[in-house]
Structure formats: C-alpha cells, structure tokens
C-alpha cells in the first residue's frame, strides 16, 4: 500500500487530503446537527434559547427540557404520523419491488445489444428535475386532468374520479419517483447472474416457476435489499411529494417538521421532530447493516 501511494501524499499532503473534507463535513454537517440536538432540549425565552449549563452561586446547573419529546411521544397525532410515514414508505417499497423486479428481470434477459439503451431510458428521468416530474402528476390526476378525461372518453367512468390530494395520488408520485432506484440495483444484480445455474436447475427437473423462485430470486436478494433501502429510507423523510400531491389526510413526518418550523415557528419543536426522525431512519439502517454483515460473513465462509 505504502509503495503504491506517491510519497508527497504521506506527510502534509495526507493531512490535507483527509483533513479538508473531514473538517468541512464536521463543521457543516455534524456540528449543525448538534445545534439541533441542543435546541430540542432548550428552554426558549422569546427568540433566544437558555444555556443548558449555568454557573450560579457556586452551583453548576444542567437544565434539559424534555417537554418536546414528552409531547411527541404522548400526542396521538405525532404517533399516528410516525406510523403512517413508515406505512407509506413500506408500501412504496413493496409497490416499487412488485413493478420494478419484473421490469429489471425482463431488462436483464433482453437481447444484449438493447440493454444499454434500455438502461439509459431508465436513468434519463434522473437528470430531469424531480420537482417538475412530480408537478406533471398534478396535471394528470386533477379532477379535470388527463387521466379523468381519458377514462371519461372511454366511457369507463361517468363522472370525474377524485384522485388528487388523496393517499392514492401521493403513492403514485412516490412510486413514480422511486421506481428507478429499485430497478437499477436489481438490474445490476440480475444481469451479472450466471445463467448456467438456471439451466442446471431446469436440467435437474425443476419447473420454470420453482427455478425462478429458488434460483433467480434467491440469488438476487442482495440487489433486492439494496434497492429496497434506496427506496425506503428517503421515502420516510419525503416532503415535496406529500406537499404537492398528498392531501390533509396523508400524514408524513417531513411535512410535520416543515410546518412546525415555517408555520408554527416553533424551533425547538421542529428540532425535536428532526431528532426523532433520525432515530426513525436509524432503525431500517441498522437492520440493513445487520443483514449486510451477516451476508458478507456467509459469503466468506462458503
């Protein structure tokens, strides 16, 4: 390792290479989060926050205000919001998997010369504005929107169906936005798969369905897990999609944080919501890490 790294990258160079990005992220990523942590347990006096530690008459006092957290864990609206955020995120992951897995499978089994173009078509929407693509669904799902007009024209419905500002419209927007995040890792896994394993299973008398389930799907579990994480984690904290496509009944935690900050101007409450959101996201991450290390351990053991 040492011999292959240029020598000037060992002394001051090494310090710069590691130190500069590290310092930047500590200063502008973790330090701000510590400010949030502090404000979430501080007493607000007007627009200022009381010091947590005070030195008075020879007594050092530490004052932590947990009222925000007590409120968060006792108010049914917050609890309901947490549950529904996780619920919508899980539902989004399942729908993306149900649509995206077969999609990635057929992509990976399509003739090799087509694949680069098929792949580019999946990733192209990434490069266009996500905000504008979500806005597009407003025009499609509106009471007088394209979908209703087409259904009326086909005489499938007699009167416009209300779709905008419902859980349905929000889920359509979520699936639409996150589907490529599921397709790409699953495709990357499936396209590398050794097809001789599938042939071997067939030769040994397995039915196509059994082969698909026990060989193809079983081998693509790492891709499924990676895709599910890429969909699940950002959808828990989603703000723009519920705001533009959701209704008053679609409770999402990201929206609660936004409203506490911008509408109620309650900084310490918004901070407490932020801290609890991080905890909420750490749970699936911990599960993911657990499976990844277990998978890696099994792989090296075999």
């Amino acid at each position: 390792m040492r011999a292959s790294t240029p020598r000037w990258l060992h002394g001051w160079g090494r310090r710069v290479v590691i130190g500069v990005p590290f310092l930047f992220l500590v200063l502008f990523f973790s330090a701000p989060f510590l400010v949030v942590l502090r404000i979430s347990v501080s007493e607000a006096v007007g627009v200022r926050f009381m010091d947590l530690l005070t030195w008075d008459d020879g007594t050092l006092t530490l004052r932590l205000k947990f009222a925000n957290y007590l409120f968060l864990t006792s108010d049914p609206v917050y609890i309901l919001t947490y549950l529904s955020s996780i619920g919508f995120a899980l539902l989004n992951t399942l729908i993306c998997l149900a649509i995206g897995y077969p999609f990635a499978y057929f992509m990976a089994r399509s003739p090799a010369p087509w694949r680069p173009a098929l792949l580019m078509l999946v990733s192209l929407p990434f490069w266009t504005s996500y905000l504008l693509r979500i806005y597009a669904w407003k025009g499609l799902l509106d009471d007088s929107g394209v979908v209703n007009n087409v259904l009326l024209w086909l005489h499938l419905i007699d009167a416009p169906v209300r779709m905008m500002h419902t859980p349905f419209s929000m889920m359509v927007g979520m699936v639409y936005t996150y589907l490529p995040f599921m397709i790409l890792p699953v495709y990357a896994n499936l396209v590398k798969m050794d097809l001789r394993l599938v042939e071997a299973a067939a030769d040994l008398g397995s039915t196509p369905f059994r082969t698909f389930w026990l060989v193809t799907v079983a081998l693509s579990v790492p891709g499924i897990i990676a895709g599910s994480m890429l969909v699940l984690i950002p959808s828990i904290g989603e703000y723009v999609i519920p705001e533009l496509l959701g209704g008053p009944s679609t409770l999402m935690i990201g929206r609660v944080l936004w409203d506490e900050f911008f509408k109620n101007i309650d900084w310490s409450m918004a901070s407490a919501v932020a801290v609890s959101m991080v905890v909420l996201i750490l749970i699936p991450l911990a599960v993911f890490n657990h499976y990844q290390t277990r998978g890696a351990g099994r792989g090296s053991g075999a």
Partner: protein
Amino acid sequence: MNSALGRAWLAFGYAFLYIPIATLIAFSFNASKMVTLWGGFSLHWYHEILHDSELIDGFVTSLKIALMTATASLVLGTLAAFALVRYRGFVGRTLFIAHINAPLVVPEVITGLSLLLFFVACERLFGIFTERGIVTIWIGHTSICTSYAAVVIQSRLLAMDKSLEEAAMNLGCRPLQVFMLVTLPLIVQSLVSAWLLTFTISLDDVVTSSFLNGPGVKTLPIVIFARARLGLNPTVNAVATLSVVVVSIGVLTGSLWMARNERRRAEEQAAAYREGMLEARA
C-alpha cells in the same frame, strides 16, 4: 417467463416513466390557460417566460449556486475519495466514513433545518453568516453533494489499475507528474460524472434552499415550487420543456463523448502493449 409478457411489462413501465414528461411538454404548447384542456397550438407560454423576471432571476441564482456547488463538491469529493481509497488506516476513519455516508441518508428537511439553526447560532455567537442567501445555500448544497461526488469518484478509484501509477513511478515520473499524466486521465470520466451529478442535484434542490435562503433570494426550484403549490401553471410546463430539451441533449452528447473516450483509451492501451511486445522481442 415468456417474452410477450416481458415486452408488455417493459412497455408499460416505460410508458409510466415517460407519459408524465410527455404530457408536461404537450401542454406547454397549449394556447389555453387551462393546463388540462387543449386549446390549440401556441408558443404563448414561452413568450411569457421571457418576460417573467422572477423565473429568470431564479434561474440565474440557481445557475450560480449549482456551478459553485459542483466545483466545490468536486474538489472536496475528490479529496474524500482519495482519503477513503488510499489511506486504509488512519485515526477516525470510521467516523470519516460515517460523515461521507450520513448526508446520503439524512432527509433534506433535517439537513436544511440544522444548517439554518447553525447559521443563526453562528450569527449570535460570532457575528458571521449574518446574511442568508447564495453563500448559505451554496454551503448547504455542498455539504450534501460532497458525499455524492466522493461515492462516484471512489468507485472509479477502486476499479483503477494501480500498477499503471507504479510503472510511471518506476520509470522516474515525479509524484505530481504521476498524478497529472496517469491518475487524472484515468479518473477524469468519473470527475465529469461527479461534477454533472452534483450540478444537477444543486440545480434541482428545493428543500435545503428553502431553509437557507434569505429575503428576496429565490432559486428557480423555489419559484416553481411556490407556483406548483398553488395549482397548475402553464409557465411551469414551458420551463419543464426547456429543461427536458437541455438535459436530453446533454445526456446524449455526454454518453457519446464517454463512449469515444473509452474507445480511444482502449486503442492507446492496445498500441502501447504492441510496442512493448515488439521491444521485448528486439
């Protein structure tokens, strides 16, 4: 799984991905103010956005921030990628990795809120960051985008053949020469990808910018978001169409350029290999 089902599944999937974009474009040429009702072909909304100073100012602001963000993230991300790949054992490496990964998973509402509260605290304690605007948004975007740049460049560095650098060093290249003549040409593609990716993320960001902007500073997504919240607006469709055209041209040229680069490098390597063989024989 039969191929008819496969073709149908792919067709429906691509339709799902592209119909919204297609309708967005179609209704930008609509003469009617009603976004959902066709009133004939017209370029009215394009004419309109030319005189829409809010949109134009927003675009200029966003462009400035995106250029600054992509450049800063490229520098910081390259350093971070080298730190991750070339220095396996340094004190605090686990913490460093956590700092690279965290911005990728923490929701933007949290990044935005925490940076704003941090800037407010800095203002009270040290009297800095008193004005919020382009600079604070730039810092916010860079703190997110550095991680994306680091991940893209890191994967290229990991895949790179290090024996090429070693060979250059053995042949007497000075370290800076090695970096400029060998390392840089090998990773330049990932640097371009990282720059474009962070540029796009910054240009598209609405949540972090909303927390970090000051009075009167509006990026293009903030303007679009405000209009989209109120309902359908044909000027938004026109902006969308223009951005789709620019992006499509960009992605197409980009992939052609990358394919050409790849081919040329393969040819050069093959030529070098042939020469080496001839010399070895002689």
